[in-house]
């Protein structure tokens, strides 16, 4: 357990609630690691880690925020599931004197948040498009396999990708209206079907997030197109890194979740201690390719430390 | 007032009714008589709007009458007591009585305004102490049957249809019901009454109509026809012996019941049964005969007492008791006795599959052959063995349930109202089979509310009252009056047990 709110703890311990979008992906565990790292460095900070299980569950996330207000934490670090849905709870927290830092995904205008710490997903999508263009020599048919309807951060990646890919006249997006769903089975099924349809003339495929990418990778192998169809993923996983190594995958757009967690906690503690913060802090986005994947930076981003 | 002519009704390949005609008159009771599966219930269902006839015409009070729904028939003043219970088990008694009636005032149920009528209806059928708020599903079958009758009375009907209302009622309630029917007749209502008991028919009805295989084969005034004639009209041949006896000898003691008590009934029941003995149990509704049988079979927990079979205490579970040779025929064939959505063969074989299997694998051909044999043995009227049980007539369902018990080849038969709803001809066949079982050394417990059959078939008869077995005598030493007196007598020790 991260929280150890025993009564005899010293008064000066700051309790910071860190609320991810969901708790069942590797990404969030790295965020947790970063937050914990900041807490350790600061010494007098306790991180309360809590979030809904699946990333589409806005109702639960609202409950969690309200629960944290009830507990009376000293600050909230939140990755909102929906930019509008969390406005009121955040407003309520601020009303109760609890400062809020938003990370990973944006929140609608309104509440006076301390700062917004995030990857620019739109730029990430553009980087994916550029990597794709390079991998397929700027010509051919490509597929954009979406995640689920209504998910903010992936929508931005999708938009970034589509906007940038439009700059290449010889690249045609043959499918961009299919959703892979939030699990690998449905992603593989969908990718299987799409490869069925476009496989022969396909140059590349972009899967916008981790669960998507795994299913798609399996489908590409299954269809015997591994290496032939260029494949760009977003966020790393063991399977994807392996694929990057053996030429089945041609690029992974990476974020820096550890930094995101670390910087968010640092920012909010600084704020509580009276310092102001930048309105938006980018934690950067990176592109790992078969060529650069062995570099130290990319090794760290490809294998981000996670909380135990 | 009711004219029916040329009514026909088919169910798939089965012709249930074929150009049936009859007439019921105001202030008279028409008895509808026929073998199991003759089409009696189907006819009443057509009259009550539950089924629509394929062809034919009907008129009520001179107006054409073709009810397209039960509601329609009810509006025209037709009430019915169905053969199978039609009560919603989850509703209270009073709500069941009011079911289907429009509310008073904007769809609200002002139960308090109806309470008088409900109380009156319950009193008429002899349930004055029944709590109208009690859950219907918790009541005994007999009580539910009375509730169902009360519901028909609570409507302001001109024509009341009774489909075997007495098949699960004991004598006292039958008397009360007849009194009631008599009152209704005097008030000028028309009544159609189905029963397999000819003496009942003689007591209550003025006219008769006989159906055979969906045809009208005769009708007229009861005074002008003898029982024998009716029976031969029904079955198309003469039935000479209504209560055939098979000589059998009574052997060694087999089943000993000592101070058996359930919670709350039966209480403190002790008796002993021998090989080849048919033991009858008489009693009023709620006397606890059903409970006693269920305790013996393990379906109800026994609070106290021991049951020894061949000197050894019975195991606890139903399955084991069945292996030890006990078999029960349930009085509730609709929900417990039969799985209504399964075929006849499936029902016959249920629990008896061990006979047709090796190492758990079935021999379907053997099963089918054996089941066909049993169907013929008890003369089930059905298209074939694959027919679903709920498409059978009531009496034929009862035969299937009985045949399963025969197929089980038990040693001790616990029969709860085995002849319920069975026609005269088949009944005598069943008595003969019971005699044969006894002759083969089996032991039978025969619960029935129909005293003549108890007196004719049993070797020994016990009477139960309020959960106790009050008196046991050889059948020869009983007559109907004595049985009735014993059944209504309060057991002497009842006060003690209340506090025990």
């Amino acid at each position, binding site marked *: 357990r991260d929280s150890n709110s025993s009564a005899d703890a010293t008064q000066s311990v700051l309790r910071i609630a860190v609320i991810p979008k969901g708790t069942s992906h590797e990404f969030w565990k790295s965020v947790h690691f970063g937050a914990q790292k900041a807490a350790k460095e600061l010494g007098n900070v306790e991180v309360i880690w809590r979030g809904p299980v699946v990333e589409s569950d806005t*109702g639960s996330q609202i409950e969690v925020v309200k*629960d944290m207000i009830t507990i009376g934490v000293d600050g909230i670090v939140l990755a909102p599931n929906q930019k*509008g849905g969390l406005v009121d709870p955040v407003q*309520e927290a601020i009303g109760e004197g609890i400062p809020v830092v938003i990370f990973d995904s944006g929140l609608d205008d*309104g509440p006076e948040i301390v700062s917004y710490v995030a990857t620019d997903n739109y730029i990430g999508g553009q980087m994916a498009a550029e990597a794709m263009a390079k991998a397929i020599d700027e010509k051919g048919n490509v597929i954009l396999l979406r995640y689920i*309807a209504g998910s903010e951060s992936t929508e931005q990646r999708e938009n970034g990708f589509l906007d940038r890919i439009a700059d290449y006249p010889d690249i045609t997006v043959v499918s961009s209206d299919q959703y892979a769903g939030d699990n690998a089975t449905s992603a593989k099924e969908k990718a299987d079907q799409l490869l069925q349809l476009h496989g022969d003339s396909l140059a590349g495929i972009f899967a916008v997030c981790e669960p998507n990418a795994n299913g798609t990778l399996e489908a590409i192998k299954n269809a015997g197109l591994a290496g032939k169809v260029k494949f760009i993923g977003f966020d790393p996983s063991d399977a994807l890194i392996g694929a990057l190594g053996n030429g089945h995958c041609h690029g992974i757009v990476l974020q820096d979740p550890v930094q995101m967690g670390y910087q968010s906690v640092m920012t909010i503690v600084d704020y509580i201690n009276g310092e102001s913060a930048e309105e938006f802090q980018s934690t950067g986005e990176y592109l790992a390719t078969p060529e650069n994947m062995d570099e130290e930076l990319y090794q760290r981003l490809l294998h981000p430390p996670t909380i135990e | 007032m009711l004219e029916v002519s040329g009514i026909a009704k088919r169910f798939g390949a089965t012709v249930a009714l074929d150009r049936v005609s009859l007439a019921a008159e105001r202030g008279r009771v028409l008895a509808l008589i026929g073998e199991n599966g003759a089409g009696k219930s189907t006819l009443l269902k057509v009259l009550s709007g539950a089924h629509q006839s394929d062809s034919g015409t009907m008129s009520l009070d001179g107006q054409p009458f073709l009810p397209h729904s039960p509601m329609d028939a009810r509006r025209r003043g037709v009430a019915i007591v169905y053969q199978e219970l039609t009560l919603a088990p989850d509703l209270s008694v009073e709500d069941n009585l009011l079911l289907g009636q429009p509310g008073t005032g904007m769809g609200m149920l002002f139960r308090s305004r109806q309470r008088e009528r409900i109380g009156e209806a319950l009193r008429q059928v002899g349930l004055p102490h029944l709590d109208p708020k009690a859950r219907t599903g918790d009541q005994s079958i007999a009580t539910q049957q009375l509730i169902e009758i009360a519901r028909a009375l609570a409507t302001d009907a001109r024509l009341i249809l009774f489909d075997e209302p007495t098949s699960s009622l004991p004598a006292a309630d039958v008397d009360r019901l007849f009194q009631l029917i008599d009152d209704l007749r005097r008030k000028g209502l028309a009544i159609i009454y189905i029963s397999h008991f000819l003496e009942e028919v003689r007591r209550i009805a003025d006219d008769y109509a006989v159906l055979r295989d969906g045809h009208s084969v005769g009708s007229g005034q009861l005074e002008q026809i003898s029982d024998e004639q009716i029976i031969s009209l029904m079955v198309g041949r003469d039935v000479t012996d209504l209560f055939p006896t098979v000589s059998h000898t009574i052997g060694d003691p087999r089943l000993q019941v000592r101070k058996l008590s359930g919670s709350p009934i039966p209480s403190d029941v002790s008796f002993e049964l021998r090989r080849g003995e048919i033991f009858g149990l008489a009693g009023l509704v709620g006397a606890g005969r059903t409970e006693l049988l269920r305790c013996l079979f393990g379906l109800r927990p026994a609070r106290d007492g021991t049951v020894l079979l061949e000197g050894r205490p019975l195991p606890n579970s139903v399955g084991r008791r069945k292996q030890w040779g006990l078999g029960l025929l349930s009085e509730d064939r609709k929900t417990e006795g039969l799985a209504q959505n399964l075929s006849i063969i499936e029902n016959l074989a249920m629990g008896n599959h061990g006979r047709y299997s090796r190492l758990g694998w079935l021999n379907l051909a053997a099963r089918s052959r054996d089941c066909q044999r049993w169907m013929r043995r008890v003369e089930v009227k059905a298209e074939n063995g694959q027919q679903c049980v709920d498409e059978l007539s009531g009496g034929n369902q009862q035969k299937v349930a009985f045949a399963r018990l025969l197929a089980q080849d038990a040693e001790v038969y616990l029969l709860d109202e085995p002849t319920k709803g069975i026609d005269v001809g088949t009944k005598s066949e069943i008595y003969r089979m019971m005699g044969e079982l006894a002759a083969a050394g089996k032991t039978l417990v025969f619960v029935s509310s129909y005293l003549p059959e108890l007196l004719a078939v049993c070797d020994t008869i016990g009477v139960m009252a309020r959960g106790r077995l009050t008196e046991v005598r050889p059948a020869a030493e009983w007559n109907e009056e004595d049985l009735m007196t014993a059944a209504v007598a309060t057991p002497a020790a009842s006060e003690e047990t209340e506090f025990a």
Partner: protein
Amino acid sequence: MNLKRRLGSISLALLNHGPALALIAIVLLFTIADNAFGSGSFFSGRNARVIINSAALVAVPALGMTLIIIAGGIDLSAGTALTLSGTALAIAFRDYTIDAQAAGAGTWIALALLGGLGVGVLCGLLNGIIISVTEMVPFIVTLGTMTIFLGLGQVIADESTVYPQTEHLPDWLRYLCYTGSNEERYWIPFLPIPSSGLIAILLGGLVAALLRLTVFGRNIVAVGSSPSTARLCGIRVGATTVWVYALAGIFVAVGALLYFANVKNGNPSDGTGKELEIIAAVVLGGGSLSGGRGSVSGTLVGALIIKTISSGCTMLSIPNTYTHIIIGVIIIVAVLIDGLRNGTPAWLFNRLGRRAD
């Protein structure tokens, strides 16, 4: 004296109410655990408000589901119908209404509400009509409409989340699910019970009255208890079914309003999975999926149980993984305890009965 007797009979009623007993036990358990290991804020007015609000979000559609389940049906489409209706509301408040402060805003808001809510009712009506006309099993029909409503929602929302113009929202709507400490924002001034909770209780009372006091209510029970009996007794089973589903549609629509007030946006895919939670509340409250049985108070308490457990686990900072296990165990134990009061499992009581002598 009279009051004392009243209180006595209320506490007796509580003892007879299995789900309520289970809820009390769960609250006690978490209060003790929270005081020992947690922050001690579980048993507080504020937390009660949060729990009541989130329970109300489940309870309101669950009231409609109670009717359906009592009538022997089921509605798998409740979740997506709810978010479809909520999305329609969000669109109305994005595109069609004017600023809440502007003159004549009342009419516009009423129209928007009517439109949004109408969608929910239509969904219910559609279910009811298909089920009664085609005589297909409700499970399949509502499984079909579940995905249809999801698709429709995504079509009208353009596959994304719909955000209303916040200026369009009147204050009462904005604070429907308010659980903060500004007492003026509650309906009953200075009695801080979330408005959503009050709505749930009010609707619950109406449904209970419907079931107990009206012919229609009794017919619902009869239809669920034994459809063939109901038919033979002259109850129009088909029409009753249609009405039950349409009525449930109203509750789905009100649930959608609460959902919208809670998250202030409409996302059609939010609803997938919600149906199970809604059905669970009914079944936890004693509803039987074979029809005929179910109770309003049970359903309300069932929703509270679900949300109390999840809140308690958060308060104790139990990780999600273990929270799942705990929720599962508590659900089973809660119903088990309810059963024990009613003499289930039979074998246990048979054995105890024997031993008692």
